[in-house]
Each structure stands twice: as C-alpha cells, then as structure tokens.
C-alpha cells in the first residue's frame, strides 16, 4: 500500500512497538487484566492524556489486538450529542460481553467534545462511567479543562510522556530501514528536534523530505521549518514579565496558546509574584484593569478590534510597569480558578438556599443573600443551637444547606432538631418529607 501516508503505514501494531510509555503500558495492562478477570476495577473509565503524537490511540488499538478484544471507537469526527451517545455507547456499555469477549469502548479525543455541538455528551458519558459493564477508555491532550471534570472524577488518569529526541530518532531510523531509505543521522536529529517530541509530526516530515531513496541534511534544513509552536503559558509569562521593550511583551501575549481571558487570569495572579515594589505593582494592575475594561467593551459592543488594546495593556502595559527588579519567585497556577472550581458545589447550595428563602420571604435572591443569610449564619453558627434547630424544622433545608449554614455545628443541630421533633410530634406526613435532609446527616 504504497500510497498510504507513513503515519498510517507505520502505525504500531503491537504494544511493544509503541515507543516508551512503559508506565502507561503497565497501568493499562493491569486495569484491563482486572476486567478480564471478571472483577472490574473501581474506576470503570481510563483517561489517557498527554501531548499529541505520543501513541495514546495506537496503544489502545495494540492492546485490543493483542488481547483479542472487541473495539467500539468514537472520536471527534462523530457527532457526540447525548442522543447519539445514548444510542451507541449507552447500548454498548450495558451489553454483557458475548462469549466472554470483552468490548473496549474507546472514546477518543474527549477534549474535542463540544459543549454546544455535542450537547449533553459529557454528562451522559459521565453517567455511563458509573454503570458500564464494559471498559471505557478515553483520550485527551488536555484533561484539565473544566468541562471534563465529570469524566476526570470518575476515571483513572494515565499520563503519557513527551518523547525524547533520541526516542524519536530511533523511531525514524526504524522507518528508514523499512522504507529502505538512506538516512543521514544528523538529518533525523534535526527533524526530531524541530518537532519537539511529536513522533507523528516527525514521521510526516520524514516522508515529506524523503526523495530518491535518501534523506539529506541539506534538504531537511530547507524544508523542515518546525511547526509553529505557540508559546505555552509558562514561556508566555516569562517572556512577558522579563520583556524590556513593548514589542516583545506584545509578542508574548499575542503568540500565547492561552486564550486572552485565561491569560488575563494568569497575569492577574502572577503580577504580585514578580513585582514587589508597590509602585510597579500598582502600575501593572492599573494596566491590567484597563485591559479588562477594554475586553468588556469589546464584548459589549461586538467591536473585536478593541482586542488590540487588550493585548497592548496586558502585554506591554504590564511588562513596562516595572521600574524595579523582577522577583525570582516562581510563577504559579491561578489560585482563583482553582478555588472557584473547588467551591462550585458550595456556591450552588447557596444559590438554592437563597432561592428557597426568597420565595418564602417574598423578596429577591439578591436581597436574601445580602440581607438575610448573614443573620442566619449568626444564628446557626454563634446563636443558641436550639433556635437553629427549630428553624431547621421550619424550613425544608437540605443537608448541604444545613452544612453551609451551620458549618461545624451542622450535625449537632441536626441531632437536636431530630430530638425536638421526637418530643413533640405533629404533622407527621409533612415531616417525612423534611426528614430526608436530616437523615443523611444522622447516618
């Protein structure tokens, strides 16, 4: 099959043909073993992640082949709306394996499931992960996307490493042999270097430069320019904060792979790490605040040409704010994004609580949040437990709401409420409904 691109032609067929990734191979092997033995592991999903071109999908295919399993594969070229997934994956996940031949469900590229075009897909997949009778393997380049959280929480994560230059060279050499190419070792090194650990890209380039049975350094130098790698966030930040000229800072932010909104969040959290002099700090924040204002204007007016000023201000504006030294403190992940993710459920409970009270108190949620909840907190956390317990009986608070209101005292108050109810029983039927919330606590 001469006409096949080499990346297909030379795809690994066996597990040991996949370069490196020994740790991942071991983990996948053990996990599959558990399934095969009929005692599925606690996490019924496996989420393989790592940079492109390191063999994630190939490895799964190789495993399937070697263990003689069935394979159902869905990837980003398929619509992965809830309805489609229900029809295909839902059915497959519920089907007992025929003749003990296990079926692996491969959901390739789950980071490509589009929240809009593939509406409901992730939520459905997450629910399948709870009840599937067949192993589900997923792959992703970036598993940390917020939208993937439901999958991440229900899966075992397996990391794939970027390949070293030497590993890529070895791989290229083996292909040269199969293709009977005379390959200049230096040329292969250059191809590997310019593709930074992406084996697939390197193979493509190899094919592109191979001519008349040989691969010459000279041609590689001319043709293989290296794929445009956008700046990852760490490089963006260091190029930005150390830039002395406006244009450098501007280049750092415009060429970042991070979108401007999250980039802004990163800069926001890292300014105080790098600027210690209050003068510098203020100038930098002033620029960033103006950038944020400009961004909101771009959004409000739909005039996206304002983005240029957003970049000017969060790039050169922040970089040129420094008169003093740049601190050596290390860059860090934006605290706020993490904290928001961690507190999401707590915030949801607060919303529900506000909605519940707004209805009863004939007012808006906003008023409840600012005018009522603070006093409820006082009663539940500082006041007499009895008053709190009585209120707990008066309103259908869920256990989460009680936890939010009372903090450490939640179980004490729940127990007290239960006792009070016992002493003076009335309105039994009504109580049953309310009990559910409390019971959870007492269990």
């Amino acid at each position, binding site marked *: 099959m001469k006409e096949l691109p080499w990346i297909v032609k030379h795809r690994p067929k066996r597990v040991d043909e996949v370069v490196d990734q020994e740790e991942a191979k071991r983990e996948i092997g053990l996990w599959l073993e558990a399934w095969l033995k009929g005692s599925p592991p606690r996490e019924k999903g496996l989420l393989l992640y790592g940079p492109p071109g390191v063999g994630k999908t190939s490895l799964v295919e190789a495993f399937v082949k070697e263990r003689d399993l069935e394979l159902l594969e869905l990837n980003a070229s398929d619509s992965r709306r809830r309805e489609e997934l229900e029809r295909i994956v839902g059915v497959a996940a519920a089907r007992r394996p025929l003749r003990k031949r296990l079926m692996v469900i491969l959901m390739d590229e789950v980071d490509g499931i589009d929240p809009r075009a593939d509406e409901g897909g992730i939520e459905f997949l997450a629910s399948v992960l709870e009840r599937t009778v067949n192993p589900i393997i997923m792959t992703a380049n970036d598993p940390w996307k917020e939208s993937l959280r439901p999958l991440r929480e229900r899966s075992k994560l397996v990391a794939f490493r970027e390949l070293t230059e030497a590993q890529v060279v070895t791989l290229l050499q083996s292909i040269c042999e199969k293709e009977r190419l005379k390959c200049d070792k230096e040329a292969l090194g250059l191809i590997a270097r310019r593709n930074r650990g992406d084996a697939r890209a390197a193979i493509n380039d190899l094919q592109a430069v191979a001519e008349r049975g040989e691969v010459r350094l000279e041609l590689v130098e001319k043709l293989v320019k290296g794929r445009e790698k956008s700046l990852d966030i760490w490089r963006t930040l260091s190029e930005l904060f150390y830039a002395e000229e406006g244009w450098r800072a501007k280049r750092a932010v415009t060429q970042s792979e991070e979108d401007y909104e999250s980039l802004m969040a990163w800069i926001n959290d890292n300014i105080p790490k790098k600027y210690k002099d209050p003068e510098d700090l203020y100038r930098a924040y002033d620029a960033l605040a103006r950038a944020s*204002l400009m961004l909101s204007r771009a959004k409000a007016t739909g005039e996206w040409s304002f983005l240029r000023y957003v970049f000017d201000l969060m790039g050169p504006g922040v970089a040129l704010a420094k008169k003093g030294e740049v601190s050596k403190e290390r860059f860090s992940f934006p605290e706020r994004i993490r904290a928001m993710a961690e507190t999401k459920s707590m915030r949801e409970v607060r919303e529900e609580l506000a909605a519940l009270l707004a209805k009863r108190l004939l*007012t808006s949620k906003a008023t409840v949040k600012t005018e009522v909840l603070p006093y409820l907190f006082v*009663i539940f956390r500082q006041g007499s437990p009895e008053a709190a317990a009585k209120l707990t009986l008066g309103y259908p608070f869920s256990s989460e709401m009680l936890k939010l209101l009372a903090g450490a005292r939640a179980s004490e108050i729940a127990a007290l409420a239960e006792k009070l109810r016992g002493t*003076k029983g009335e309105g039994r039927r009504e109580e049953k409904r309310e009990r559910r919330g409390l019971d959870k606590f007492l269990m």
Partner: protein
Amino acid sequence: MSVKELLWVEKYRPRTLSEVVNQREVVERLKLFVKEKNIPHLLFAGPPGTGKTTVAHALARELYGENYIQHLLELNASDERGIDTIRNKVKEFARSRTAPGIPFKIVLLDESDNMTADAQQALRRLMELYTASTRFILIANYPSKIIDPLQSRCAFFRFVALSREDVVGRLKYIAELENVEYEEEALDAIYDISEGDMRKAINVLQAAASLGKVTVNSVYRAVGLARPREVREMLELALAGKFEEARKALRKLMIEYGLSGEDVVKQMHREVFSSELKIPEEHRVLIADYIGEIHFRITEGSDDDIQLSALLAWLSLLGKRARR
C-alpha cells in the same frame, strides 16, 4: 407550641390589610378597592422594608381569599433575566383561569425600578395587551426610575419610611410573644442600624436573640458577626502594603462568602467611612473617589477580581506613600 420555628420576618408578616399597622393612608385607599372588587394597575414606591410586597400580598389575599396565590404571579425584575422571560411568564399566566367573581389576576413585579428604560417600555405594552385579564402591581424603591408612561398608567402609592415608634413598637410586640428578654436601648440601637427597614430590624432582633438576652452589646455583636470581618482586614492589609495577604482576604470574601465584586466594593466603601478604620481624612476622600471609579468599571462589565486587585494595589501604594 410548635417546635418548628420560622424566620420572624415571615412569622410576623401581616396577612391582612388591617394587620398592617403603618402606611395607614395607603391601606385605607386599598381597602376601597377591595370593597369594589376592582383595582387599577398599582405602583408601590418607597424605601426597602416598608411593607410594599407585604401589602401587595395582603391585598391579593383579601381579594381572592386564602388561596390567592393561584391568582398572583410574582416576578422579581432583578432575578428574571430580561423582559422576554417576563413576557412569556405573563403571557402564560394571562391565559389561566380567573377567580370566580373577580375577572382579573394580579402580576406582582418586584424591584421594577431595576429594569432598563427599554424593558419598561416593553412592560407598558404588556400591560396594555393584557389589561382585560390582569392587573399589575409594580414595586419600586425609586419611583423616579420608573418611566413616565408607566407611572401614568398606575395608581401611585407612596410608602413612607417607618418611624422609630413604629419599628420599636413592632420589635417589642415580637419580643414579648417570643419570650425574648431585652433592654429598651437595644431596640433603639436596632432601629438606628435598620434605617427604618422593618425586615432588617426584625432579622437583627432574631439574630441577637439567638445569642441570649437582647442588649445593645448583643445587637452590635450580631450585626458585627453578620458583616464579614475580612473587609476591614483586607483594607488594613492593603494599606500596610501586604498586597498578597489582602488579596487572599478578597478571594475569601468573593468565593467563600459568595459576595459579588459589587458587594465587596460596597462593603469596602462602608468601611472606609467607618470610624474604626484609622486613616487620615484626606485618604478617605481619595479612596472613596477611587472606589467610585472601580465600581464604575465593574458595572461596565469588566472582571471584578482584576478591578479589585487593582484597587488593592492602589491602596498599598497609598499606604506606602503615607508611611514616608
């Protein structure tokens, strides 16, 4: 006595017009409508906590009886997103059956002064469209924010701020029924804090009572506890040049307490003018002005965390310059 307890603002809410002890003028006029079993569109305007929503419910109860809630659509302009939601809800509600004997239903629109002028225009047409089968009661803090064409379609009722006597009287009444011990001055203190807002006054009373006997001290304790301490700390940290710690406090306020950027700005603003923050008078003015600027940017839609960080950075610069 039941072991179940309600929030006192709910428990002691007047159910009938006669139970409403203040706003006598308003109540008298409304009773006439009840007698005629007919009302025009109404506009209730006045400060928060003066009983506007309560009166609207009481009115509906007197018209339709205990199950009045079937004939009342309650919307809150600051919760409902945009006029379209309102339009759809009203449309559907207008189709539902009316009560026997009363050929109209009531749409209660709270915080209607929070609607944009455009939305109010749309509301006006909605009122005209369904005028046969519905009456609107618009509730607003500031009548001047209601556009003229709407005002002129409604009978106007002004709710006045409650007097000290009204509030203290009510608090005493509740305290006695609830067997709460109290000092007289404590109730005065509550009135001062509440600024004539009955809802707030009752909430403070209940919170203070949960701490034991209601004294001036416990009132201030309750109020102090209800207000996040982090706001002042944040200000002080920033002014002391401890930017990162100040920002931690900020994040705690926004994430743990769930305050919006606007809430934080408002609370900072309050602290800036409190005597407990020891800073030179001139700084207060400067800070108030800059807070104004930041608040303005936040309302324009820019990121509140970034804007507040900028504010904290500015404060720590101010602090540094002052220390020189």
